[in-house]
């Protein structure tokens, strides 16, 4: 058959990621290998705990629920997939018992690509390989639907196991690599001494070549040696547990957990080419599963060194990942993240002050506040984003100004170093120079703000706009409160400020057509990608800022600003709801991107490749763009001069 005779079917698959990247002839060949199946709603297509899926399913019409059966008998909704989405790939590729149950939520029409040809595609086609390996962004629409329903359960104990199931951590990230091993001929006593010296509860017994044979634990020593009256000079081989199961370092943490549960063991040998490379214990797994937001936050206060502090953001990533998978709302996630960043900053301020005192530079000469600006000020910071900040110290007589400024510059420089070692980007020289500029007295800051409101031209205001999102993260004075009052009074007297601020913002409309054409942003390296922050978030942020300043609102968070101006009747309820949805959706996409990048170790900022989105996401993104466009029209009418 040279040409598949029903073009519509081929066209449909051609619009499905990743089939859309296939050559025409190849796609025709693959279509010929497929079945088209119908499942009435309610029918279970894949049952958790049973044989792995024998097909890749591509939904042509209808939707499925992906659920995880719980011990209580209820089911936890993990994902809903719709037209153009796929399912069955995970258990098929892993070749293990299905983890999730997939049920037709509506009458379902789905293409089925059998096991063998699908594996061949994943093996031979890099796009398929990438798409079907673990990907966060793919689950984003599920996240949206699940809303904050599940996040409230984060503190519950029965979700602890679930965390691990859903966490994408791999065994090699969690295993202990400092191995205590001995040969099978080692006397039990010698092994016990080694264990005591290293303060561990177990020792691995390996062949000379490194192949693990078994494990000797504290319990074995008690039960099989002491209680059994075995002399302490027998070789460990005679008393060790031989039921040592092995797992690959590339396996997911949840696989390790399942493996342990299946065999009733607490340790697994991590082997590569039959050689022992690590050990993973149930304790290591509880460490991951225990990474609740509350846990990590508490940790921040306990940390006493910069090194320990720098390790926390990585754990925070894991928390965010879990939240994302469990369906945290954007608002909640941003709150958690900014609360964490705030606490980390405050802790860092304390540590830096102590360090400076130890260096003999003395304590802070006067009272001060640490202000967050821009995205941090709005509590909308993504992971690892550079922080805009300002230090405000109490007014001092002119003769003391220089010494005081010198102390705070040193302080700010150290703070920036600290923040960047915690993963906040940007230790460039520019930022360091900035450290000198951002430390100013209250009077100096006030003067700047007044100058901006009273007469700054749009280009200068474009640079200054982020200062109008200020928020005190650490405050020894009430400076920020007083400043807001003065700013509002100044705006009252200079209404043209709002017009200038509007002009300072970018007035480009989000590219609604982009998603079809796949290229608009002509930034060379990212030709096929889309800068989400610039096109979808920034316009909303700018609009919310102008309206908030217009209405004397002290909120800095964009969603809060929008909520407040809607209550004042400036925006229609319907529009506000749409904006809320759009902003939340794009924010979630952005968080997912950041997480994925921190996994892959690359930094592509807010750039997004639409090819990696599924249909539902693309549709939502397009709708989001349209809403943003409407908001821009509204602000243009109100504020453009």
């Amino acid at each position, binding site marked *: *058959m040279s040409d*598949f005779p*029903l073009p*519509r*079917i081929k066209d449909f698959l051609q619009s499905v990621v990743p089939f859309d990247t296939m050559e025409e002839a190849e796609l025709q060949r693959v279509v*010929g290998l497929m079945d088209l*199946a119908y499942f*009435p709603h309610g029918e279970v297509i894949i049952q958790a705990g049973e044989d792995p899926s024998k097909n890749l399913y591509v939904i042509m*019409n209808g939707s499925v629920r992906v659920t995880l059966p719980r011990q209580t008998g209820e089911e936890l909704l993990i994902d809903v997939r719709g037209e153009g989405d796929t399912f069955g790939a995970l258990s098929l590729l892993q070749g293990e018992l299905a983890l999730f149950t997939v049920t037709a939520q509506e*009458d379902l029409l789905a293409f089925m690509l059998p096991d063998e040809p699908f594996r061949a595609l994943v093996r031979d086609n890099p796009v398929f390989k990438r798409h079907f390996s673990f990907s966060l962004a793919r689950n984003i629409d599920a996240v949206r639907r699940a809303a904050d329903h599940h996040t409230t359960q984060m503190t519950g104990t029965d979700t602890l196991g679930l965390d691990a199931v859903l966490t994408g951590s791999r065994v090699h990230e969690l295993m202990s690599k400092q191995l205590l091993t001995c040969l099978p001929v080692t006397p039990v006593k010698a092994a016990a001494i080694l264990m005591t010296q290293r303060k561990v509860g177990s020792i691995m017994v390996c062949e000379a070549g490194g192949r693990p044979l078994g494990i000797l634990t504290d319990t074995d020593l008690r039960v099989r040696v002491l209680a059994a009256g075995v002399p302490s000079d027998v070789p460990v081989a005679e008393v060790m547990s031989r039921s040592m199961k092995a797992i690959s370092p590339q396996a997911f943490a949840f696989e390790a957990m399942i493996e342990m549960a299946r065999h009733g063991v607490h340790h697994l040998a991590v082997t590569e080419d039959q050689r022992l490379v690590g050990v993973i214990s149930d304790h290591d797994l509880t460490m991951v599963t225990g990474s609740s937001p509350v846990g990590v936050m508490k940790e921040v206060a306990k940390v006493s060194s910069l090194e320990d502090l720098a390790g926390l953001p990585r754990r925070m990533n894991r928390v965010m990942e879990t939240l994302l998978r469990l369906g945290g709302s954007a608002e909640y996630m941003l709150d958690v993240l900014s609360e964490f960043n705030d606490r980390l900053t405050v802790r860092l301020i304390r540590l830096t002050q102590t360090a400076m005192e130890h260096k003999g530079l003395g304590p802070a000469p006067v009272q001060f506040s640490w202000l967050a600006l821009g995205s941090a000020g709005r509590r909308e910071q993504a992971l690892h984003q550079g922080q805009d900040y300002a230090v405000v110290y109490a007014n001092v007589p002119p003769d003391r100004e220089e010494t005081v400024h010198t102390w705070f510059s040193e302080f700010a420089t150290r703070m920036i170093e600290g923040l960047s070692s915690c993963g906040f980007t940007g230790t460039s020289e520019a930022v360091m120079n900035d450290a000198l500029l951002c430390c100013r007295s209250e009077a100096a800051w006030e003067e700047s703000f007044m100058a901006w409101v009273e007469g700054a031209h749009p280009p200068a205001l474009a640079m200054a706009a982020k200062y109008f999102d200020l928020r005190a993260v650490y405050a020894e004075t009430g400076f920020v409160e007083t400043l807001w009052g003065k700013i509002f009074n100044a705006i009252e007297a200079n209404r043209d400020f709002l017009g200038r601020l509007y002009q300072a913002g970018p007035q480009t409309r989000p590219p609604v057509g982009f998603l079809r054409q796949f290229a608009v942003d002509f930034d060379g390296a990212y030709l096929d990608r889309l800068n989400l922050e610039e096109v979808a978030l920034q316009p909303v942020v700018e609009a919310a800022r102008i309206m908030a300043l217009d209405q004397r609102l002290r909120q800095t968070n964009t969603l809060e600003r929008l909520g407040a101006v809607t209550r004042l009747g400036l925006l229609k309820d319907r529009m506000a709801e749409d904006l809320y949805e759009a902003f939340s959706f794009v924010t979630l996409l952005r968080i997912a991107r950041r997480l994925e990048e921190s996994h892959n170790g690359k930094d592509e900022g807010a750039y997004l490749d639409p090819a990696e989105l599924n249909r539902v996401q693309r549709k939502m993104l397009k709708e989001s763009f349209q809403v943003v466009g409407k908001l821009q029209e509204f602000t243009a009418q109100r504020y453009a001069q």
Partner: protein
Amino acid sequence: MNLWQAKLLNRATRLRLAHRRLPDEARANLSVLDGLSGRAPVSAQRYVVVDLETTGLDHTKDRVVSVGAFRVVGGHIRLGEVFNEFANPGRGIPVESIKVHGITPDNIRDARPAWEVFRDFLGFLGRDIVVAHFARFDMFFLNRVMRAQYGMRLQNLVVDTVLMCRAALIEPDPYGQKKGAKRCSLDALAARYGLEVPERHTALGDAMATALILQRLLPEMEHAGWKTLGDLVRVAGVQ
């Protein structure tokens, strides 16, 4: 129609043709009912869903111009097993028909005559059960060629999705008022099931639509209590 009746007729045909020299495909077709069990579940059967386009609706003078078919196994439509051929009707195609199926004289100028196309179709069909929407129409044209060519009609079981629809979806009609007739048309069923039918009014497009409808009718039949092949033939068999 019952399965045993079909088998009886098949035996009569075999006896009648026992000493006739028959081409292989006809000989093979005579034995397609062997081993069929009336107790086998309907959902597990192998079906070939077929649709013909013709030069018109008058079966006394019109001819086949196109044959399209899909195989459905275990409820799954096999996208790799497709039969799709034009047939040369040996006469002009009326404008009215061109308007319906879009097949022009140019399309069929190089097509083979219907009997050759049907010969290949027999090979594609094998022992599977034939399914068509308003099957009597398609079977009339098919059997006319079969009789002329081999002296017998098609021996495979044939079921009609219109009859399945009436049995499973429409309330009983003891007074023969035929109130449900229109509700079982291909378009009505496609609308009922929310199917977007690609390339409607081409043989293959209509075969696909019928196959998609069959997929949904099979569970409905089971739900209504007709679970076996014997039930299916009794309710929806046409020959």
